[in-house]
């Protein structure tokens, strides 16, 4: 029963992509309708898998021949376990919200066919990535999502910034993909198959050196995909994409693929010496530095991008200290409130026409609906009690206190405070204060946007209630992860009585107060001016990127000199290689 549903979540969006591309851009209304329809159907199919969560592998398509030996590619297997189905539900449901939002956001834009087709292909590939049980097909779907991400970032391909951002995202995430492929090939070569449950059961069969290699290769792949330090520079530049794309791909879905990778392979790598520490350090640095960068950014989407990077750092940190369920829960909450924030920001940007926050201001009176949902999202981000961000962030910090080094916990606590600071700053600069341009004409969100925003806002209040069922499903279907199942009430009580919770709440309150009282704290901001300068220059990471690009270009132009175009030189190279090959052949025989 579950096989057709799984195949639907993957191939129905792809079918929709082909259909939308086939009807061309002559009929935009039909394109909007088809896109919404296909994505909603995929979302329903994903929700229908929920009763069937299990750790059983279902082989869908096997390329084995008559003989019993496995073929080179392995079989296309799917494992509908809790983490996979969670990501699939997030991808398809939030995907349908993003598409519904696009009906209004992309109204009147050109090349809608390309836009919707790419988004639908992406949704299908993400479902495949989350559900598959074969490493090779994981890599295959990983690459498809990277391709769709690149194409959508460069959607406005007349804009050189958009094209540059797309290429940067593609190059950095593909370099990480090399790590994934290398690890997958090592596993397959040593264990004989690409099967993931098989690897998790037999991970000790690999020699310690090889296991360490695979562990760090996967860490690099997920750090590049989830924009962690040192690969975080692509996500802020990817904000040139249309905002629904940013909401779906760069907040809720594709960047979670890295977290998914770390989560799924955690049982195999937890015993590798130094791996968990490396993960903690990566998550910690990312969360802290990105929060600082968000606090000084002037572009609304960049603030949200840095905030995404920072929250992903929280999840990576959680995995590193052993709180895998906390990471899973925070991933769920984050997907909901970050998508909400991005879509609401999209409504603002669509209406005002600029992304710079210092040209907004005072929009609260003119866009009350958007202001309200945005504030809900910002409160969830900051970790105010009752909203889902509070519960999941507390769970992350609590597991950090129990399982990880103390100094790391202090940094994450500080990061939570900075998160509150920049959330407040964001809300204030956009919706309160004096309008930068009193003569502008803005309108509130219309029907399509509201239909997309309301369920997300509702989710920001309520998704934490699913903690119990989520932990139950995870404990059931993820036998290697040793997740402790509790009901929601038990979770709530545990979080409320833990002392770390109240420490965090007070730090969050301090963060909020610091922003509100910033007029009186100018002495502090002048002392921290060096920090502001460093954060605005992204702590030197952009410079490193530019340096790497310059080195590659210079070496390429040096190597150009070897291509002389002269027949004699070409033949000399031929003869030289002949000599080398002969030597290799003779010495090995």
């Amino acid at each position, binding site marked *: 029963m579950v096989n057709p549903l799984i195949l639907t979540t993957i191939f129905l969006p792809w079918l929709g992509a082909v259909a939308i591309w086939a009807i061309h851009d002559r009929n935009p209304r039909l394109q909007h309708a088809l896109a919404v329809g296909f994505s909603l159907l995929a979302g329903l199919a994903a929700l229908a898998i929920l009763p069937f969560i299990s750790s059983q592998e279902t082989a869908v398509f096997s390329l084995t021949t008559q003989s019993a030996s496995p073929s080179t590619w392995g079989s296309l297997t799917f494992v509908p376990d809790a983490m996979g189905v969670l990501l699939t539900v997030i991808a398809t449901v939030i995907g349908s919200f993003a598409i519904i939002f696009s009906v209004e956001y992309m109204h009147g834009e050109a090349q809608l066919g390309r836009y919707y087709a790419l988004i639908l292909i992406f949704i299908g590939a993400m479902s495949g990535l989350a559900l598959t049980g074969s490493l090779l097909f994981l890599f295959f779907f990983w690459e498809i999502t990277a391709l769709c991400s690149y194409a959508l970032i460069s959607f406005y391909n007349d804009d050189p910034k958009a094209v540059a951002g797309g290429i940067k995202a593609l190059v950095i995430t593909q370099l990480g993909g090399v790590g994934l492929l290398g690890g997958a090939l090592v596993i397959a070569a040593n264990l004989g198959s690409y099967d993931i449950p098989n690897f998790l059961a037999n991970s000790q069969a690999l020699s310690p050196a090889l296991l360490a290699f695979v562990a760090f290769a996967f860490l690099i792949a997920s750090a590049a995909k989830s924009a962690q330090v040192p690969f975080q520079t692509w996500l802020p530049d990817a904000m040139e994409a249309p905002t629904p794309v940013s909401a779906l791909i760069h907040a809720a879905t594709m960047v979670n693929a890295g977290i998914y990778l770390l989560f799924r392979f955690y049982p195999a790598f937890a015993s590798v010496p130094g791996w968990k520490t490396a993960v903690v350090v990566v998550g910690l640095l990312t969360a802290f530095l990105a929060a600082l960068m968000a606090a000084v950014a002037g572009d609304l989407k960049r603030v949200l991008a840095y905030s995404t990077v920072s929250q992903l750092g929280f999840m990576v940190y959680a995995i590193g200290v052993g709180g895998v369920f906390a990471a899973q829960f925070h991933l769920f909450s984050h997907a909901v409130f970050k998508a909400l924030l991005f879509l609401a920001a999209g409504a603002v940007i669509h209406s005002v026409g600029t992304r710079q926050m210092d040209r907004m201001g005072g929009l609260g009176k003119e866009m009350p609906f958007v202001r309200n949902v945005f504030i809900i999202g910002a409160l969830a981000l900051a970790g105010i009690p009752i909203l889902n961000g509070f519960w999941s962030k507390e769970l992350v910090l609590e597991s950090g206190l129990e399982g990880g080094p103390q100094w790391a916990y202090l940094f994450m606590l500080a990061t939570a405070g900075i998160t509150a600071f920049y959330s407040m700053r964001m809300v204030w600069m956009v919706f309160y204060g004096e309008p930068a341009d009193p003569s502008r004409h803005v309108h509130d969100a219309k029907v399509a946007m509201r239909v997309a925003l309301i369920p997300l806002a509702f989710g920001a209040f309520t998704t934490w209630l699913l903690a119990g069922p989520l932990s139950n499903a995870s404990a059931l279907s993820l036998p290697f992860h040793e997740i402790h199942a509790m009901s929601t009430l038990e979770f709530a009580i545990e979080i409320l009585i833990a002392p770390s919770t109240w420490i965090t709440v007070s730090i969050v309150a301090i963060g909020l107060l610091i922003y509100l009282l910033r007029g009186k704290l100018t002495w502090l901001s002048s002392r921290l001016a060096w920090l502001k300068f460093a954060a605005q220059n992204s702590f030197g990471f952009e410079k490193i990127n530019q340096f790497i690009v310059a080195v590659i270009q210079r070496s390429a132009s040096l190597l150009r000199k070897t291509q002389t*175009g002269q027949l004699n030189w070409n033949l000399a190279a031929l003869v030289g290689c002949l000599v080398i090959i002969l030597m290799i052949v003779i010495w090995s025989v």
Partner: protein
Amino acid sequence: MTLSPVNIILIGVFGLLGIGLYGLLTIRNLIKIVMVLQLLVKAAIIGLVLAGKVSGQIDLGQSTAATVLVADTMVAVVGLALAVQIRLRWGTLDITALSKLKG
């Protein structure tokens, strides 16, 4: 290592090959390059027949050598025709100068 006929011919084959490769690396006249290619082909033909004799399959060696002979004669003929046309159109047969031509 005795100087049996087979060994001598083997040295001959590789020697012609070497001289031919040296010619390919140093000669700049297009017609001379076609001649050097012919030389390499002769080395190949002798090598094929020699291999046939050494392994006992004379028929195979001969038939392959005949095939190669015909094919490479065609190569020489077409190469010469091209060289003539190049000379008439661009006035030079120097391959270094021909590499720099545009259009």
